[in-house]
Structure formats: structure tokens, C-alpha cells
């Protein structure tokens, strides 16, 4: 996995709560058997005026001029400001894959849906929770100043604004450790293979019906 230590990037504000995973990447694009290539279809139904199909050249499609990411000032944004309950809905990891493929590295919101939050970490994408009043301030600043950038430091657990104001955020230690070092967490778990085996052996004794009984 790609490591994440520090990131500075252009901010795009998406002023809408309960953005669900169907909105982030509609189902017709889930038919791919790859992890990449979802970027052009990120927020497909909001971003384009027509109905998107897989294997279509999205650069030729009519854009929705009202959608925030279509405004020239937010081109190449890599930090997304979002509202509450971002990523609710399905477990599709295609959602973080699409955000990542588009070029986002950080998503900041007052709250995230659990599965989505978890899926981000597996893909080198950092979801940050900040309090509603701080979010409000960041939204205002990002909308007011063209070219507004934020710096995110995962080591220090801070978000820093262009004026030098700094906000700290929480992230659990294991996830932070994996992200900072770009660790494959399957490898980390397999370091405990012996322990898993002995747990399993004991369960075979106490709960044999869990091991293929009745088949």
C-alpha cells in the first residue's frame, strides 16, 4: 500500500450531507474486476448530465456545470471537504478506489459511515473527522479564497490552513501506523499465524459444529 505521511493540496468543498456510495460510484461501474480506472466515474450522476455507462469515453460527455468538481477553480483538488455521514450505504470499496483514482488523498468531514471510513485506510486515503464548527470555518475559507490549500500531517495528526492555523484530529494507532509505513495489514496479521492456529484448534474442540459439520 502507498504510504501517507504528509500531504498538501487544493481543497474542494462538497456541501451536501449523507453522500452515499451509490452517489460516489454508481453500480453500473462495479462490474469491473479491477481496482483502478474508476476516477472518470466518481460522482457520475452528479457530475455528468447523461447516464454513464462502463467502457465509455467520459471526456466526451456533457458536464453538469453546477457540480462543484466541474468548476475550473477546483481542478486537480486532492482534499475533499464533506458534510456529515459521508460514505453511507454499501460496503463497496469501489468508492475509495474512485476517490483515489480521481486524485483525492484526504477527505475531511464531521462524520463518516463506518465501513467507508475503514475502507479508506486500506487504500492509502486518509479520512479525517473534525468538529462541525471547524468544518464550517474550513468550508467558508475554501469557498472564499480561490486556490485554497490545506496541509495534512499524519505523523503530527494535524490539519494546517494557509494562515497557519492548526487543528488536530484523532486516528487510531494501528491504522495510523499502517498508513505511515504503507504496510500491508495481511502481512502484519500473518505474523500472528501461530496464535490464529491455536485459537482454531481450541475452537475445533469446543465448537466442532463450526468446522464443516453436517456438510
Amino acid at each position, binding site marked *: 500500500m502507498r504510504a501517507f505521511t504528509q500531504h498538501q493540496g487544493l481543497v474542494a468543498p462538497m456541501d451536501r*450531507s*449523507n453522500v*452515499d456510495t*451509490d*452517489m460516489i460510484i*454508481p*453500480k*453500473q461501474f*462495479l*462490474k*469491473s*474486476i*479491477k*481496482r483502478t480506472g474508476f476516477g472518470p466515474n466518481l460522482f457520475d*450522476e452528479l457530475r455528468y448530465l447523461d*447516464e454513464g455507462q*462502463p*467502457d465509455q469515453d467520459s471526456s466526451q460527455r456533457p458536464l453538469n456545470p453546477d457540480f462543484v468538481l466541474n468548476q475550473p477553480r477546483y481542478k486537480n483538488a486532492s482534499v475533499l471537504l464533506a*458534510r*456529515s*455521514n459521508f460514505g*453511507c*450505504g*454499501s*460496503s*463497496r*470499496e469501489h468508492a*475509495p478506489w474512485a476517490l483515489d483514482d480521481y486524485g483525492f488523498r484526504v477527505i475531511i468531514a464531521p*462524520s463518516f*459511515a*463506518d*465501513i467507508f471510513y*475503514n*475502507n479508506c485506510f*486500506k*487504500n492509502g486515503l486518509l479520512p479525517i473527522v473534525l468538529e462541525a464548527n471547524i468544518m464550517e470555518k474550513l468550508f467558508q475559507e475554501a469557498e472564499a479564497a480561490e486556490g485554497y490549500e490545506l496541509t495534512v500531517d499524519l505523523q503530527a495528526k494535524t490539519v494546517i490552513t494557509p494562515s497557519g492555523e492548526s487543528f488536530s484530529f484523532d486516528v*487510531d*494507532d*494501528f*491504522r495510523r501506523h499502517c498508513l505511515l509505513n504503507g504496510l500491508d*495489514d*495481511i502481512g502484519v*496479521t*500473518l505474523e*500472528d*499465524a501461530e*496464535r*490464529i492456529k491455536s*485459537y*482454531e484448534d481450541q*475452537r475445533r474442540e469446543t*465448537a*466442532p*459444529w*463450526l*468446522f*464443516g*459439520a*453436517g*456438510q
Partner: protein
Amino acid sequence: MAGKTLYDKLWDDHLVKQRDDGSALIYIDRQLLHEVTSPQAFEGLRLANRKPWRIDANLATPDHNVPTTDRAKGIEGIVDPVSRIQVETLGKNCDEFGILEFKIMDKRQGIVHVIGPEQGATLPGMTIVCGDSHTSTHGAFGCLAHGIGTSEVEHVLATQCLVQQKMKNMLVKVDGQLGKGVTGKDVVLAIIAKIGTAGGTGHAIEFGGEAIQNLSMEGRMTICNMAIEAGARVGMVAVDGTTIEYVKGRPFSPKGESWDAAVKYWRTLHSDLDAVFDKTVELDAADILPQVSWGTSPEMVVGINGHVPDPAKEEDPIKREGIERALKYMGLQPNQAITDIKLDRVFIGSCTNSRIEDLREAAVVVKGRKVADSLMQAMVVPGSGLVKAQAEAEGLDQIFIEAGLEWRDPGCSMCLAMNADKLGQGEHCASTSNRNFEGRQGFGGRTHLVSPAMAAAAAIAGHFVDVRELLN
């Protein structure tokens, strides 16, 4: 020391290692696989040169992309080449790694969350995962079951474990008796309307109280299925006689001595009387009416005698904007009566409501009646090949067909419209599925979530009606 909740017990029994940083390794007893969220996981295994840890813990079936007609053609019947590749890829991966798969032609094929319980592959006390958020369904059996992403599917395949943080405990208690014509679906919609789509975030919800205890396993599965729509990855119901009766004699269920030992353990799977929950919400079953969603989020729900809300009366600006946006998308007017919403299609199916009891409830309503002429389509999609066979043995298929509903083959179908079954732009659909997000059932489609009985009643009337009027 306070007693344990059901969630605490399941957690403790599956804890392989507690790490210092607060994360834990949890052992997974069962993984269910389908074609949409598994290909990249198998690919990851291959790239890292890893093998599945325990093959017999996995069970696979294609469901999201399968057509619901013309199934005699098997995989060849999948018209969309991209869908076909996905179903074929699942087949190849399962064959390569030796994982049991109910393939498209197998009569046991169906929606993952229907076939697990049906086969006894879902047993009380298990930890169950699947790359699908509605895995919470299995919690109805006193399981710790939740959806995971594709990276975690790969993690479980490779290690039989998941890295987890312990969630908080939440109790949703529904006391009293449900009225006639009010089902598990109405209960869960009423719960979501009350606590909101983020009400359960970070929590494992246990559903309890007299009304839940009185429900069948089908009703409990419907409720746990939609825990995720309340923001909770996990929904659970304690094990009781109803659970054990349901599990008995299923193909994967234990037999003989092993059965007796299992039952003894399963009987302990309930929260202790003195267990403490971080959050408790109570509802009175008698207050719950048949529910209908009017908006684009599962919390935008009212009783059948209610009205579409008026954004002008909402004080919170973010909520007001949400209501305005939803009304625009749904093509509805403020204060419009729910019974005035005209429908174009009716869909009875999905992992929320496609089990035999759901079909029986719908059949009772349509029996001897005819689908409204104004409707473009009404379809019934059973949750599995075995549900289909059972319904046919009971003659339910004939009741539906005579009333003018289409009788389809099993799969996810119009729940998320990844196959050919979808809504056209602007069409209103009474749907027994679980999500009414924009575009969920087709680009520009308008979904109203209801119970099977309410969907059946709507099919007859061509608009929403109180099913209780048809039940007398």
C-alpha cells in the same frame, strides 16, 4: 461487574488477540462471497502468492448480476458482457481455490443473505462477514455479522481473521404487540425514521423487546438487514426457541451429539439481565403503522396515513435543504398525502424481503385481485432457487401470475439494478428493498420503501393504500 451484552459475548468468544493499540484480531467463522466485491480480493491473493486459510469457511454464489429471466441458458443468458465476466470470474476463482459455490444453474443459488440462513451456513454464535453491507442480516441468528470491503475480504481469505475495533453497544427495544398488517419491515423503517441514518454509527445494535421476540426468523432478518441503514454495521437478535427451531435440520446444521452441544451453547447467546448498553432507544409496537418512504434516504419515512413533509416547516437549514432536494428528485409536492402517490412499478424482492414468509404476505393481499391497469410492471423475485421452489409448491406463483405480477428467477434484481431489471427516469416504484438513494434502482428512478404486503396492496391500487383495508 456488570453483565455482558450479546455483542460482548460474541466478541470475547472470537478474540484471537487484543493489541496494545486498541485494535484486535477477531476470528471469522464464515465468509460469504459474491461476484461484485470478490474479484479484486482473489486477484490480491494471487499477486501476493497467498492461499486461503480455511477453505470450508467460505461459501459463494453469484447474485447481483444474474438475470431473473431465461435462466435455462445459464451464464450464456447474461446479456451484458461485463456482468458475464464478473460471474465467470467468481466461478473461476472458486474452482481454482476449491471454494464451494452455488453456481447460476444450481437450485440453491440465490442472494447471499438468503442462502446462508437457508442452508444452515449461518449458525447462532458465528462471526460472519461478506463484502456486502447487508451482512447484518445474519445477526438475526445471534451472530456477529457485518459487511466488509474488498481488502478485508482478501484479509479474511488469507488469515481467517479481521482487524477490528470494538464497537459500542446499543439496544433498540420494541415493546408491545404489532397491529395486524404491520411487519418487521415497518418496524425497522420506523426505527430508522426515529434514530436517523447515522443513529447507529459506531454501534452494534441489539433489537429486543416483546415485539421482536414475537417475530419469525424472516421478520428478524428483515430488521437486522436494515441495521446498516440506521448506520450500524451490526444488528442482532438474541437466540431463543424460534432461532433454534429454524436452524434445525438444515444442510449445514450440526447433527446428533454435535447438535446438542451446539444448542447448549446457543442458549447462552443473549444479553445478561444486568448488561449495560451505551445507548438505548425504545419504541412502542402499537404506535407503528405500515410505513412508506417518500424521499431519497431511508430515514425519510412516514406512516401510510401521513403526508409528504413541507420543507418550509423545517427549522434546521441543512435538513430543509435535504427535504427540498429529495422532493425535487422524487417529483413530489409538500403536504401531498402518501396515498396520492401514483406508482409505475412494483418490486417485491431483495435480501430484505424475498423469503418465503414475505412472499406469503404479499400473496394473501393479491389473491383473487388484479394489478392496476395503470401500472407498467409488478414483479416478484424470490430470494433463492429454494424459496422459489417452496413458493411454487404452495401455489403462490399461480396467485401472483393470475393477479398479473411477473414471477421471476432469484437474484438481487431491481434492488440495485445491476442486471436488466431497472426503473426508467422519473418512474415511481413501491419496492421491498432497503435503499431509496438517488439512482439506486435505475438512473432517475424514484424508490419508495415498503413491506411486501404494502407493495402488494400498492400493486392492486396503482397508488399507496393502507394494506389493512385489504386484509379484512
